[in-house]
C-alpha cells in the first residue's frame, strides 16, 4: 500500500459528486451581488447557505470602516499577534469584545477555527480531560487531539450521559473542561445549557461554550445562548467567530479568568500565524457595534427562520429538532440528496449539501441558513424550490391522492 493509496476512496466520491457537472463542495460564486444573492453557474441565485445571519457583509458603515483602515493601515500586518501584528485596532477590538460580553478580557485570533482549536488545545494538556458533546465542530476535535488530554465525548445534548461521565471521572473532574456549542451548526439545535451549567457547578469542572453560530443570534444583547439561558456566570470561556453574524473573518475568546492573558504566550494558533488584516478588524468592530445597536436585525432573522422552518415543515420534510437560523432538511439517500442539491441550484437556490461523516447521522442534509437580509419573497421561493423536489413528502402525498381520484 503506497502513500497515496488512501486517496482512491475520495476519487470515487468525487466522481459520484461530479455526475451532474458541478462539484457541490467548492461551488464558485461568480459574482456576489448582496448578502443573499449571487451569480452561480451563470444564474442569479438566492444564497440560503452562507451563515451570514445578520446580513452585514454589505453594510455601508462596515464597508466604509474597512476602506478607511485599508487606506490608512495597508493590506496586511504581515506578522503574528505576538510579534509585529498587533495594531491599535486589534487591541481596541479585544477591549470592545470584552465589554460586549461583560468579561474581563478577550483574545482575537485570525479565524474562528484557530480560536477554538487554540483554546481547547491550550486549556487542556496531558493528564487533563476534555469532555465534549459528540456533535462538536471539527475545530474542537482537532484542538482535543493536539492537547494531549484524554478525550471523552458524551451523546449529543444528552445531559444524563454527561452526568454519568462526570461521575465516573471522580477526582479528575477538577482537571476537566466540558465543551459544548451554543447552536450546533449542522442541525441548528441548541445545547441544554442550564442543565450543563448546573452539572458543571455541581461537579466542579470547567466549561467552554462555542457561540460561533449563536453570537448575534441569541440573547437579549446578542451574546449567545449563555445569555439567553441566563447562565453566563457558569461559563468559564466563551469562544466564537467573526465570520457569521459579524460578516468578516476571525475568532475570539472572552473570559473572566486571569489565565486568558497567559494563553497569549502559549496558544500556538495565536502565536504562529499572521494577525487579522486591518480592514477585517475595522469592519468587525463596526459590525459588533451594529449587533449592539440594532436588535431589530436579530428579530428579523428569527422571523425569517420561522418562515422557512414552518414552510418546509408544512411540506412534510424531516427537519432539525427546533426552528432557528439553521434549517436542515434530512435526506436519507445520498444520491437523492446530491440530485436534489443540483435541482435546487438549477432553480436558483443555493443551500449546503452535507454528507456523512460531516452529518450527525447516516442521512445527508440539505442545510439552509437564514439571514436577516432575506426577504419574505425570497424565502417563499426557497420553499417552492424544495416543494418541487421529487422526494418532497407533500408532493408525493398529493400525487398519490391525484392518482387515486
Amino acid at each position: 500500500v503506497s502513500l497515496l493509496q488512501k486517496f482512491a476512496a475520495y476519487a470515487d466520491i468525487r466522481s459520484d459528486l461530479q455526475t451532474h457537472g458541478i462539484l457541490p463542495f467548492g461551488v464558485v460564486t461568480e459574482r456576489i451581488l448582496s448578502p443573499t444573492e449571487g451569480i452561480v453557474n451563470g444564474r442569479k441565485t438566492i444564497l440560503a447557505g452562507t451563515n451570514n445571519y445578520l446580513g452585514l457583509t454589505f453594510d455601508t458603515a462596515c464597508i466604509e470602516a474597512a476602506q478607511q483602515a485599508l487606506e490608512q493601515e495597508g493590506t496586511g500586518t504581515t506578522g503574528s499577534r505576538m510579534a509585529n501584528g498587533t495594531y491599535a485596532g486589534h487591541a481596541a477590538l479585544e477591549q470592545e469584545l470584552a465589554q460586549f460580553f461583560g468579561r474581563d478580557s478577550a483574545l482575537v485570533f485570525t479565524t474562528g477555527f484557530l480560536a477554538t482549536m487554540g483554546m481547547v488545545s491550550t486549556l487542556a494538556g496531558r493528564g487533563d480531560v476534555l469532555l465534549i458533546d459528540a456533535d462538536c465542530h471539527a475545530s474542537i476535535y482537532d484542538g482535543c487531539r493536539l492537547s494531549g488530554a484524554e478525550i471523552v465525548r458524551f451523546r449529543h445534548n444528552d445531559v444524563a450521559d454527561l452526568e454519568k461521565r462526570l461521575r465516573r471521572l471522580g477526582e479528575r473532574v477538577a482537571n476537566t473542561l466540558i465543551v459544548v456549542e451554543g447552536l450546533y451548526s449542522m442541525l441548528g439545535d441548541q445545547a441544554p445549557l442550564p442543565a450543563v451549567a448546573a452539572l458543571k457547578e455541581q461537579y466542579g469542572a470547567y466549561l467552554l461554550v462555542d457561540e460561533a453560530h449563536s453570537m448575534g443570534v441569541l440573547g437579549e444583547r446578542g451574546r449567545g445562548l449563555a445569555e439567553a439561558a441566563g447562565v453566563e456566570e457558569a461559563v468559564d470561556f466563551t469562544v466564537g467567530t467573526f465570520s457569521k453574524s459579524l460578516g468578516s473573518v476571525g475568532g475570539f475568546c472572552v473570559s473572566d479568568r486571569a489565565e486568558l492573558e497567559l494563553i497569549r504566550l502559549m496558544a500556538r494558533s495565536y502565536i504562529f500565524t499572521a494577525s487579522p488584516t486591518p480592514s477585517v478588524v475595522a469592519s468587525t468592530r463596526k459590525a459588533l457595534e451594529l449587533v449592539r445597536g440594532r436588535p431589530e436585525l436579530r428579530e428579523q432573522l428569527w422571523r425569517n427562520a420561522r418562515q422557512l422552518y414552518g414552510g418546509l415543515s408544512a411540506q412534510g420534510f424531516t427537519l432539525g429538532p427546533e426552528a432557528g437560523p439553521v434549517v436542515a432538511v434530512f435526506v436519507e439517500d445520498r444520491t437523492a440528496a446530491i440530485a436534489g442539491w443540483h435541482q435546487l441550484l438549477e432553480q436558483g437556490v443555493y443551500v449546503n449539501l452535507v454528507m456523512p461523516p460531516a452529518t450527525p447521522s447516516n442521512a445527508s442534509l440539505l442545510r439552509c441558513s437564514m439571514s436577516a437580509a432575506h426577504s419574505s419573497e425570497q424565502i417563499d421561493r426557497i420553499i417552492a424550490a424544495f416543494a418541487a423536489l421529487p422526494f418532497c413528502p407533500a408532493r408525493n402525498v398529493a400525487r398519490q391522492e391525484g392518482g387515486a381520484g
Partner: protein
Amino acid sequence: MSAYQECLSIIYEALEAFLQPGQVLSEDSALVADLGLSSLQVMELVADIEDKLDITIPLNVLPDVRNVRELAQLLAGLRGAKS
C-alpha cells in the same frame, strides 16, 4: 470467569445488534474490515458497552482497537484501573 472473558461476552452481546445475517463472531473479527461497522456504529457500540460496564472509554485509545480481542483487552484494562 476472567475479566477478559467477561468483557468478551459483553462485547459479543453488544455486537448482536450490529450483525448482518450469517456473520459469525470471533476474537479475530475486525470491527470495520470484517463486520463492516461505520464510524457512527462503532461509536454506538462503544457507548452501549460503556453503559453496560459503567466505564468511560477515552476517544484517544479507540484508533488502536481493530478487532474484538483488542477491544476486550482494552475493556479488561479499564475495568482493572477502575477497581
